[in-house]
């Protein structure tokens, strides 16, 4: 085999490999649906969890069964993104009026070191009277975040007097069965969330 040809083969292998990696990466991002602003969900995302609520009591998917839930992963030392998203969740529930009673707002902290049940008990009611704040051990949080494909990482730097959390910011709609019915990207208007929830409720009633 001459040099040029073997170089070409190597180049081809590299190109195929990179393309494969790109395809792989691409599949991790769920495509958005045109109708309701939610996303089509890969079946292996989500799952049961058992954590501690802001009163210190055990709380998990068992307690949520039978109701819809809007689930968010955030932290209280988050100055902008988390309050914005929790505000949107509360507004979506309000927009559903009476049907909103069937939707439980839930926040799971990704910063359990700071977010003890006591801290969450002051924070959660600011956004919605029924918002449940959940915390756990670092292992528990890592597991549930992994199940829901939430990425988070502590950002620490000597020039900062505090640490921040970098994190993905999705809102998950859990169906009464506990399965993820829809996922909303950061910035999804509350109207779109409400419409998606209404659509799931209607589909459920017809089915």
């Amino acid at each position, binding site marked *: 085999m001459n040099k040029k040809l073997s170089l070409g083969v190597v180049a081809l292998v590299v190109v195929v490999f990179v393309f494969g990696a790109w395809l792989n990466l691409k599949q991790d*991002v769920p495509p958005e649906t045109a109708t309701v602003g939610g996303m089509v969900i890969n079946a292996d995302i989500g799952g049961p969890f058992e954590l501690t609520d802001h009163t210190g009591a055990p709380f998990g998917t068992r307690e949520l069964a039978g109701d819809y839930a809007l689930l968010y992963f955030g932290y209280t*030392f988050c100055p902008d993104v988390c309050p914005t998203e929790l505000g949107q969740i509360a*507004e979506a529930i309000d927009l559903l009026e009476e049907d909103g009673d069937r939707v439980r707002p839930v926040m799971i902290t990704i910063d359990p070191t700071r977010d003890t049940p006591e801290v969450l008990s002051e924070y959660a009611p*600011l956004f919605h009277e029924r918002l449940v704040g959940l915390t756990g051990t670092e292992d528990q949080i890592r597991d549930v975040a992994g199940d829901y494909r939430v990425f988070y990482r502590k950002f620490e730097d000597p*020039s900062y007097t505090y640490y921040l959390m970098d994190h993905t910011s999705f809102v998950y709609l859990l169906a009464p069965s506990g399965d993820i019915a829809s996922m909303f990207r*950061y910035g999804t208007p509350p109207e779109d969330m409400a419409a998606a929830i209404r659509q799931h409720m209607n589909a459920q009633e017809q089915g």
Partner: protein
Amino acid sequence: MIARRLLTVLATALLLFGHGTPAQAHEEKFDELVISHPWSRATATNQKVGAVFLEVQTKTGRPDRLIGASTPDAETVEIHDHIRDGDMMRMRRIDGVDIPAEGSAVLQPGGQHLMLIGLKVPLFEETVFPMTLVFEKAGSVEIEVIVEAAGAGKTKAGGDHQRHQMTK
């Protein structure tokens, strides 16, 4: 507590009676900047951080730069930007915010904000707190920040723009 309540009354009066009593008061001094609707969100009693949002316009026709801020209610105030890397959210400190010669610089949810670190008192909804903004050219400006609901977003809070303006 009394002072805070008094401030609340003042803030309410401001909102009710209109286009900028403080605007006129500040305009008497200088005529360089317009700060529109500085607002923040209510915080929990044990919460140590908050964020302030506002819009700045320069009236001089020259660009300026917001380079710092402080408030008696927090140990420090930093200027932060929100970096959205795909679906990953990152908050990082920045040195300043450019105020363009024309148009305005908008600090709003999902973008740049003033991060209040080490809150000494909780921020209660419908109260106001004082803040000093420092600009490269215009110098220091005293403003009052209105505290809105914890979950207030840019659409909800934007309504009072015209009625809550401060100029220097």
